[in-house]
């Protein structure tokens, strides 16, 4: 996993609440191999029309937001299906940070497992950022994971919370599997105890 430390990039606002992972990437694309690249599939059916042409009204198709590296969303972004391809599509497009008032729990987890940073901020903070980005198309945000801050062109940086486990994972790009396997003695001890206490589970 590629480490994430700090990013300055164009940020795009998405005002609709409850954007589900089906909308981030439709089910018919999920069978594709990881290597095939999921960037062109991001938000496919709202980004492109039936003929494959770009829909001019979709935010990432507007010249100023094209190639955004940060998304600022409304409530419950990434709700619904557990498909990890939703995060792959964001990453392959070039978006490494999503900022919003709340995310689908599984999507949120999937972000950190893939080197993307999902940041929960207060609803008013997210709304303020979206308003600023709409007023100043092409504005950039700097997201500093080490310092846990989001900074725009003006105003004081916004402080955000991230748990130490996830932060360390992103900063180092660590292999979580290897980390867990270090706990093997604890896992084995647990299994031995479980065989005695709950033998019906095998």
């Amino acid at each position, binding site marked *: 996993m590629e480490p994430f430390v700090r990013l300055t990039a164009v940020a795009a606002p998405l*005002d*609709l*609440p*409850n954007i*589900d992972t*089906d*909308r981030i990437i*439709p*089910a*018919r694309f*999920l*069978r*594709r191999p*990881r290597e095939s690249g999921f960037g062109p599939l991001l938000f496919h*059916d*709202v980004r492109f029309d*039936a003929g494959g042409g770009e829909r001019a009204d979709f935010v990432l198709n507007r010249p100023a937001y094209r190639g955004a590296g940060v998304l600022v969303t*409304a*409530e*419950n972004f990434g*709700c*619904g*299906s*557990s*498909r*990890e391809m939703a*995060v792959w599509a964001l990453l392959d497009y070039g978006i490494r940070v999503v900022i919003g008032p*709340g*995310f*689908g*729990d*599984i999507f949120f*987890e*999937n972000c950190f*497992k*893939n080197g993307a940073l999902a940041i929960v901020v207060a609803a008013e903070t997210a709304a303020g950022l979206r308003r600023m980005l709409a007023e100043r198309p092409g504005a950039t945000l700097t997201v500093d994971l080490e310092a846990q801050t989001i900074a725009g062109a003006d105003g004081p940086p916004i402080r955000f919370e991230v*748990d*130490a*486990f*996830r*932060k*360390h994972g992103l900063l180092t790009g660590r292999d*979580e*599997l290897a980390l*867990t*396997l270090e*706990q093997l003695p*604890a*896992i084995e001890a*647990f*299994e031995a105890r*479980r065989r005695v206490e*709950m*033998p*019906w*589970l*095998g």
Partner: protein
Amino acid sequence: MASPPRTMFEKIWTRHVVAEGPGGQMLLYVDRHLLHEGSTHALERLERKGRPVRRPEACVATADHYVPTAPGAGEIADPEVRRMVADLGRHTGRLGITFFGRGEPRQGIVHVIGPEQGVTQPGILLVCGDSHTATHGAFGALAFGVGSTEVEHVLATQCLWQRKPRVMRITVTGARPFGVTAKDVILSIIARIGAGGGVGHAIEYAGPVIRAMSMAERMTVCNMSIEAGARAGMVAPDETTYAYLEGRPFAPRGAMWSGALAHWRTLPSDPAAVFDREVTLDAAEIAPTVTWGTSPQDALPITGRVPDPAAMGDPARRASVERALAYMGLTPGAPLAGIPVSRVFIGSCTNSRLEDLRAAAGVARGRRATVPAWVVPGSGGVKRAAEAEGLDRVFADAGFEWREPGCSMCVGMNGDTAAAGERVASTSNRNFEGRQGQGARTHLMSPAMAAAAAVTGRLTDVRTLA
């Protein structure tokens, strides 16, 4: 000193902690892991890395998302889909994982076959790379959906890093009025707390209405927890649970059964347990329910009308409803009953069990479908049991199509999709834009309501057909 009162969630969680990590993360032990074609990505990554699967005997796999459901379907036509299904067979064979593949009599939707086979048991921690895994919480298990990286992690370590969620209790009081099903109860709950209302929570469903439900009904309720944002939904185990489980192929037997039962009886939340949030609904206020929009929270009684965005004060809410109505092709203020539908889908991990099919057949019997209507049983077991009761004949006589088990038109991955602009009365769990096909419009409802829509060709209050 007596230990403080604990919730069922707390009891099960504590029992599964292997180690504590930084930031409040806990390494949890996974008792059972269910796999489907979508899990193949994770199996492939493990093979490439040369990592073994820690406990193949704790896994059960089935083919559901991508299998064709057309009656008598032969070879899978699409080479990519054929490969997905074949690869799962190859990996499970290589690893010695139990696999119910195509043509296997026990094959079916992963959230139907787990309980049906007795794999799902009270007190266990069960995961699956599918967001509807909360279904298994109906047995008093802690069950939740995970992403593909987490699937790989569980396969390799039998463990998962998790942060403890908060716990919400949703109590449904009173008794269900005539014609009100488990689906109406859960749609009403989601409408009340919202599509994000359960984020960061595990939900325990409680109260006399839940207590009186069958296992199939409890599964319908727990199944849609994720539609309210909650990764896990649970119901305390009781005699209904034990009676359902006893004698199932993977359930404990003999002395093991007695030991398990003694443990299961300790699981329900202590009477004085404190929940982070409490929500109460009165069942008397619940009516047969349908969705009108593109989020499961957009649910109203069938006697209601399409909402009018112009009457909404919050501009964000107004814009969201305007967009949903434009996608759904609905006029503000129009009565929901009477909206014409193009087709009907009865199936999915929410509503494809024997009781669901009986309810739909009860409405279909002696009537005729006026639009294409599919019935997709949840598993081979459900299909055979339904046929033994003659339900397939009831459906066939009423002009409904009786199909093979699978996820089918709930998610459309196997090609079972509705066309753009088609309006589907569906017993599935998601009415998202494009969920049942690009441009397809979904109205969620119970099996009886879907059957009523099939015979009238319109969204219909099933109580008026009785």
